[in-house]
Structures are given as structure tokens and as C-alpha cells.
């Protein structure tokens, strides 16, 4: 009996967990009254809980295995439903219009608080899309993405503080400085592969944060920089509520621009070079692709977006300090990319909204945030490793197609 064996295994796991958590969950030594409490009830809870969870886990896994046998859609093919949805203009256009309308109406229907949250989510969409260029498209595992975010934020904060530079001027400057930073860094480190690159970028991210934290004369150390100007609107004086709405629209606009650019990039020549790079480095070189340049382009373009969002971040919060640029932030952005579906634009949008909005609206569970986060990640990797929205790869075609080719597949 298969089910019986599964039950037995789950029982074993429950027992194991009970033993494992025994010292922490059952025994409590009360040092004041010098007695030992035995909380046997906890043990029962853990036993039952881990038994049920483990059994559910096994069931799901078994179903997944069975499902794989039947409906293997193969690499790169789109499930039929989604393909039809994407293709039909009758559905696609109204859906897009409705989406655009609700995005435009959002700040007028909801409070400043909600608008702010939504702005943050949109900023993470941009960060996710930027990192996606590096990780999802070019296949370079960058764990230090937040360093460029910090460069952008500090460029605006410092330039504003010392020279009164405005937001709109700082936006390209922040992006440019990040790009320069990425160039300087990229030359030496992009020779590294895979895990080495990951470790070096991680180190770089920590170094950046430590420098910001300790170089007081330059960055004002841990106390950070306050009173950064918000973006102005032709010298009008805006109330806080109006400013929030205005900022929402700035971010929305930039986000749309990002979507557009990333889409174009994906299907461009350099986008194809990235695909080759990701798939096989030696073959990529044998195709006559300049590997070093393809890597550097991906790295610097990603950095440009981080820098830009950094400026946005500084303008939104009007206060920054190094604590906002820890490795955890890099991990968060990377999670958006991985969870959403590497290389998939839709996936990253969905991923960013899920990861940013869910914790905001589940404040009640905030102490379990990391636990939930970890659980979701593990579940995703087991049951949907391709991400929420799997990447629908563009099929490259020759511009002139012989008639025999038709448009099958796709």
C-alpha cells in the first residue's frame, strides 16, 4: 500500500520533529522558582502539526510527479490557455485598458498611505526589471545589486544637500554615476563565473554599505542625510497629499518606460547575445559574440536602473541612511526576480507586487514575515521552479520567411 507507506513516513517525521524540538518547546526551566515546567501540550501540537504538514507535502509532491508525466509542455512552449489569452486582441486590449485606468485612478480612490505603498511596489518592479537584465537575461548572478541602488540614492542626497541639485537633474546623474561605478567594477569581476561572481558582488555590496556607514565626512555615517527635496512641479507648492500623488505618477511613468525598454532589449541583438551567454559561454564566443561586452552591457544597464530607483527612493523618503542598503535588500530584489520567473517581465511585475504588498497588508503577521518568506521560497522552488509566470521565450525568426515555414510553433 502506497498510502500506508506515506503515512508511516509522515509519522516518522512527526516523531523526529517532536524529539528535535523537545528541549526548546517542552522543557522550560523557571530560574526564579527553580522548577522545571513540562509543557507536554506543545509536544502534541508539534507532533500533529508536523504529521499533517508532512503528509500534505507528500501528497502534493506525488501529484506533481504524476502531473509531470502527463502534461509535459516542453521547454519554452506556452500553456494553451495563456497563449490564447495573450494572442486574442479581444481580451488583451480591454484588459490592458482596464489595468491602465485602475493604475491612473488608484491615487484618487485610495488614501496617501495606500498610494505610498503602491509607489514602493512600483519601485520594486523597476528594481526587479533592472536586476532581471543581469540575472534573468544575461545569467550573471549578482548579489550586490543594492550597491548601485545606494549609489543612486546617495548621489541625489549628497548633490541635493551640497549643491541643491533638483530631482529631475539628479535622475540621470544618479543613473550615470551608477553606470560608471558598474563599469569600474565590472571590468575586473565579470571574468568570474557563477558562484565566484555571486560572492564577489556580495562582498562589494557589503563594502559599499560599510563605507557609507563609516566615512562620516562623506556620507554622514549611520545618521544618514535628511531633508532631501521632493520632486518639484514647475515651482508649485504641493500639499503632502498632492506630492504623494505626483510622485506616484512619476514612478508609474518611469515604470512603464522601464517595461517598454526592457521588452525592446529582450528582443534586440544584445538581448540575443545575452541568451547565448546564459546558455553556454564557450558556444557564445564561438558565435562571434563579444562575451566581455555582452556581460558589461547587462551589468551596467542593470546598474543604471538601480541608480535611477535609488534617486527615486531618496526623493520619496527624503531621508536615507546606510541601513536601507543591506544585503537583505539585494536578497529581496533577487527573490522578486526568481519568484516571479527569471527573464519573464510579467512574472517580475507579479513577483514585486506579491513580495512588497503582501507584507504590507499582513502587518498582523509581521513577526512571522521571514518565516513565511522562507516557506514560500522553498515551496516555490519545489513546485514551481520556473517562477510564477514562466518566461515565454521569444522565438527568433528570420525577417524573410520562406513560404514553407508558415507560423507554426511560435
Amino acid at each position: 500500500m502506497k498510502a500506508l507507506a506515506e503515512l508511516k513516513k509522515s509519522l516518522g517525521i512527526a516523531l523526529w520533529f517532536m524529539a528535535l524540538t523537545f528541549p526548546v518547546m517542552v522543557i522550560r526551566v523557571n530560574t526564579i522558582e527553580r522548577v522545571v515546567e513540562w509543557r507536554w501540550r506543545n509536544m502534541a501540537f508539534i507532533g500533529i502539526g508536523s504529521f499533517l504538514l508532512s503528509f500534505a507535502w507528500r501528497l502534493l509532491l506525488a501529484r506533481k510527479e504524476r502531473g509531470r508525466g502527463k502534461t509535459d509542455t516542453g521547454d519554452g512552449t506556452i500553456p494553451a490557455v495563456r497563449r490564447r489569452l495573450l494572442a486574442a486582441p479581444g481580451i488583451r486590449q480591454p484588459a490592458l485598458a482596464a489595468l491602465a485606468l485602475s493604475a491612473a485612478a488608484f491615487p484618487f480612490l485610495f488614501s496617501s498611505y495606500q498610494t505610498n505603498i503602491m509607489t514602493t511596489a512600483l519601485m520594486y518592479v523597476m528594481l526587479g526589471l533592472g536586476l532581471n537584465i543581469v540575472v534573468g537575461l544575461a545569467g550573471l548572478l549578482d548579489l550586490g545589486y543594492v550597491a548601485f541602488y545606494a549609489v543612486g540614492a546617495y548621489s541625489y542626497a549628497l548633490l541635493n544637500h551640497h549643491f541643491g541639485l533638483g530631482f529631475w537633474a539628479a535622475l540621470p546623474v544618479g543613473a550615470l554615476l551608477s553606470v560608471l561605478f558598474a563599469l569600474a567594477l565590472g571590468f575586473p569581476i565579470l571574468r568570474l563565473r557563477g558562484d565566484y561572481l555571486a560572492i564577489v558582488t556580495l562582498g562589494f555590496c557589503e563594502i559599499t554599505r560599510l563605507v557609507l556607514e563609516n566615512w562620516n565626512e562623506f556620507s554622514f555615517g549611520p545618521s544618514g542625510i535628511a531633508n532631501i527635496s521632493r520632486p518639484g512641479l514647475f515651482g508649485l507648492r504641493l500639499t503632502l497629499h498632492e506630492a504623494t500623488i505626483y510622485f506616484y505618477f512619476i514612478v508609474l511613468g518611469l515604470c512603464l518606460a522601464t517595461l517598454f525598454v526592457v521588452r525592446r532589449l529582450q528582443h534586440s541583438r544584445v538581448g540575443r547575445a545575452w541568451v547565448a551567454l546564459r546558455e553556454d559561454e564557450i558556444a557564445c564566443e564561438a558565435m562571434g559574440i563579444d562575451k566581455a561586452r555582452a556581460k558589461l552591457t547587462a551589468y551596467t544597464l542593470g546598474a543604471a536602473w538601480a541608480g535611477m530607483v535609488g534617486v527615486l527612493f531618496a526623493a520619496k523618503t527624503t531621508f536615507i541612511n546606510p541601513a536601507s542598503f543591506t544585503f537583505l535588500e539585494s536578497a529581496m530584489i533577487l527573490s522578486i526576480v526568481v519568484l516571479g520567473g527569471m527573464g519573464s517581465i510579467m512574472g517580475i511585475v507579479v513577483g514585486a507586487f506579491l513580495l512588497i504588498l503582501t507584507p504590507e497588508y499582513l502587518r498582523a503577521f509581521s513577526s512571522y514575515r521571514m518565516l513565511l518568506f522562507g516557506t514560500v521560497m522553498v515551496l516555490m522552488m519545489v513546485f514551481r521552479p520556473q517562477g510564477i509566470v514562466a518566461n515565454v521565450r521569444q522565438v527568433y525568426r528570420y525577417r524573410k520567411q520562406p513560404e514553407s515555414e508558415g507560423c507554426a510553433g511560435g
Partner: protein
Amino acid sequence: MPLLELDNVATFYGSIQALKGISLSIAAGEIITLIGANGAGKSTTLMTICGIAPPRAGRILFRGAAIEAAEPHEIVRRGISQVPEGRRIFPHLTVTENLAMGAFLRKDSTEIARDREYLFSLFPILKERRHQPGGTLSGGEQQMLAISRALMARPALLLLDEPSLGLAPLVSRLIFRIIRQINEERRTTILLVEQNANLALRIAHRGYVLENGRITLEGNCAELLGNEEVKRAYLGM
């Protein structure tokens, strides 16, 4: 003037010297084969020519111009394509996409489409499989795809690294026949690295024998096939 000329080329991997002064020359239109035991340095020779493992000493002239210091992509642009050892096709890209990658440096889309049709006519199985991801092809099909992909760059010189590796004898023979056909129809010069000396020496014009990073023998194929040492070491006779 030879199409490609190697003059006393030495290549190192760190402190290990893989090529200990190799000299060879290939005239336009020739098929040259390079045979040798495992670890003799055959793959390294190809990697050195196409710039992925640049030499520490010696000269490489392609059409009379020095290329030993050029970047790999620059060398491809000059007209040298490689089918690397182990094929290395892009596993998640379809057959058509793999071919398109081969033409990465070209912009003449009508000619690209024509070349693709030509290759489909050489390997009809690829046409049947054109929407299938490369990673799902059989070993022989992958080899055909790798050769086709390299030819999509319209190289003057094609470097082939063990095209018969892991293939059934019948498939290897088919591939060798087509290599010959490409050489005759397209005037593509070919440098063929092979373990299967018997097959290689039958389609090539001339051959070199590589041992421990040095060339120990060279000559036209009839001579090599008749050479006692070659017979013993590489033909198993």
C-alpha cells in the same frame, strides 16, 4: 599564400604547457586533419586558433594577417568558425534559433535564410526538428546542428572538433560525407580534429599527427595511411 599558418605556437593552461611549438599550414580549399591520442592537444590547437585559449608564444596568420592576439569574436568576424568539442549547442533554443545564433554577426537576412535552407537540404532531419529545443535532439542530430550553426557564419575556415564523437558508425559516415560535400560545394576550408583516424584520413587531403603537444608526422593522407607508426597507433592495425 596559405589560408592559415601556425608558426611555432605554444599554449599554456596556467603552468601546464599544452602546445609545445606547433607549426602547420592550410591552403584555401583543403581539408586537413589533425589526429592524435587523448590529451595530445588537438582541442587546444583549435581553441588557440579561434582565440579562446590564446597562445603565449608563436604566430598565427590568417590570410596573411596576425590573429594570435585577436579576441575570439574578432576572429569569427574574420572568417573562422569552430564546432567545439562536445557540440555545445544552446539547449533551450530551438533548432532555428540555434542556427540564427550562428549567423549572429551577419545582417543579410535573405542570404541567411538561403544558407539555412541549404543546410536543411544537407540535414533534412534538422528541418523536421526545427521547432524543437536543441537539448532534446539526439547526439547525431546535435552534431549536425552544431556543424550547421557554425556554417551559418559563412566561414572561410571551419574548425571541427571530433564530429564523430559518440556517434554510431553509420551517422559518422554520413557526417563525414557531408563535410566533404560542404568542402566541395562551398569551397570551405576545413580543419578536422579526429580520434577516428581511419575515417578522417579518408576524406582529408593532408594530415598532421600530434603527440604531447608536438607535431610528429605530417603528409598527405595516402602517405599517412601507409605509415607503419600511424597504422599501429591510430588505425589499430
